[in-house]
């Protein structure tokens, strides 16, 4: 039971504690200063309400994310959104994170070891775990995330005890305060994603497996933001592309560099493993729902998906996608699509609960926050047009795949697809 809880927590925390999330946190802490704590608190509270809604026992006992979405929006839009968000995350975020881990290993630990070779080595390790079976990958997840957490806790403690050379009250030019505050709050909402993953069957109907990791992540991110602001001037944090490394170095010197290096590598493994599991489970659930397979075929598919993901990521890395500025857009686009998916799931859950006479106005207010956040984050970014193009392309490709899948299955007698013409259960 403990192992199952730790696996669930490890999955929920995989993005929150990843190097990319720490980088976003560091930049925003630098830009907004003390406001980051208010934003993190609001982000955590909104995430908490979202967990309460999408994991409401009245919904989870009969619906999954896909069926809940399909019942409200229809089968094809539900499949399209799920495919676009899960595949974007499983392909682009790992590509960027593995390259980051490769550079970290090369620059922190072994100078002569090629960074790309290390990135491929990590990818091979994660793939091996998945080939060994979902159980093995789930067992490894708490280890990766636990190691990252331990490193961050150690650095936070050192940062709290140590006295910095510079104070954290340095002011920087940040522009319109209201615009900045909204940006930081919406970014905080993005940082806490991960609670929408399918939970452990052992805790079916319980929201504890999502709330505890969210609270742990909130405390750790807030502490990390605090020690970063305490030890590093705001302007430096805001401008850096690797604020976590700078904070670690300022807090603990060379040992700090080594500790954050371990955190980056284990965090990357946790993220890649976690996102593979998230995508794999979502796609398998979709397959089970639309075209139920015999158990041996399902097990085979569970292993083939990580192979496909790994081959695609390997091609992206070998083709130099990491060296292109486009990867930044793809990663940000994939994260925003994740937010869209959670927002739509939230709307579907609110609608389902409303139908079950569990009416509560705050639910629809919460649902409104997600499109606002996505619009704000997409339009205020430096690559707004490119992001919109990415959204449309991702959704168009997913819609085409979903339509092809439904058309193929529609040729065979299939109760799910016939039912989807009307209202799903």
């Amino acid at each position, binding site marked *: 039971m403990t192992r199952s809880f730790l696996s669930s927590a490890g999955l929920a925390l995989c993005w929150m504690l990843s*190097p990319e999330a720490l980088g976003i946190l560091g930049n925003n802490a630098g830009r907004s200063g003390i406001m980051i704590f208010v934003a993190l608190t609001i982000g955590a509270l909104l995430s908490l309400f979202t967990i309460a809604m999408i994991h409401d026992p009245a919904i989870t006992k009969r619906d999954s994310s896909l069926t809940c979405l399909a019942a409200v929006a229809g089968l094809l839009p539900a499949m399209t959104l799920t495919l676009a968000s899960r595949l974007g995350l499983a392909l682009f975020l790992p590509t*960027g994170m593995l*390259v*980051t881990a490769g*550079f*970290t290993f090369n*620059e*922190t630990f072994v100078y002569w070891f090629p*960074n790309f070779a290390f990135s491929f080595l990590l990818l091979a390790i994660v793939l091996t775990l998945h080939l060994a079976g979902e159980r093995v990958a789930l067992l490894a997840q708490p280890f990766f995330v636990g190691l990252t957490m331990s490193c961050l806790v150690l650095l936070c403690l050192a940062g709290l005890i140590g006295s910095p050379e510079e104070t954290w009250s340095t002011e920087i030019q940040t522009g319109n305060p209201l615009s900045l505050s909204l940006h930081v709050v919406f970014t905080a909402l993005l940082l806490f994603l991960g609670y929408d993953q399918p939970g452990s069957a052992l805790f079916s109907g319980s929201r504890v497996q999502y709330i505890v990791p969210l609270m742990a992540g909130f405390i750790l991110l807030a502490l990390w933001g605090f020690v970063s602001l305490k030890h590093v001037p705001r302007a430096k944090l805001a401008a850096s*592309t*690797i604020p976590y*490394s700078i904070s670690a170095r300022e807090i603990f010197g060379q040992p700090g*560099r080594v500790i954050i290096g371990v955190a980056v590598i284990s965090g990357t493994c946790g993220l890649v493993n976690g996102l593979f599991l998230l995508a794999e489970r979502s796609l398998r659930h979709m397959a089970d729902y639309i075209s139920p397979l015999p158990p041996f075929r399902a097990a085979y598919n569970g292993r083939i998906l990580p192979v496909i993901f790994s081959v695609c990521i390997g091609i992206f890395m070998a083709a130099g*996608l*990491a*060296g*292109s*500025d*486009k*990867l*930044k857009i793809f990663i940000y686009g994939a994260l925003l699509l994740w937010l869209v998916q959670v927002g739509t799931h939230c709307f579907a859950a609110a609608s389902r609960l409303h139908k079950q006479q569990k009416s509560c106005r705050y639910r629809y207010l919460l649902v409104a926050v997600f499109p606002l956040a996505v619009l704000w984050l997409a339009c205020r970014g430096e690559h707004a047009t490119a992001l919109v193009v990415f959204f449309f392309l991702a959704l168009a490709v997913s819609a085409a795949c979903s339509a092809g899948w439904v058309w193929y299955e529609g040729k065979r007698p299939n109760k799910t697809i016939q039912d989807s013409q009307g209202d799903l259960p």
Partner: protein
Amino acid sequence: MNKILAFLIILLVATTPLLAASVQKMDKDVLKSLLGSENLLILDVRQGRDWITSEFKIKDALRVDDGDLSVAKTYPKESTFVLYCA
């Protein structure tokens, strides 16, 4: 057919270092000794994540976008141009 293929592979392997040899390599100690000297231009040609996630960024190096080396034209021909790519 196999012999031709083998010959082409050997030719490619043999000529690649020769082509690369036209650009001199500089180790970090030599570069350190040159830092601060006049007519030294360091161009950081790393792109995307290669640059973003690297901890090592040389002070005063100019970052070049998309391989655009036109900035080098503004320096005298006698200058030492250092391209930092990894």
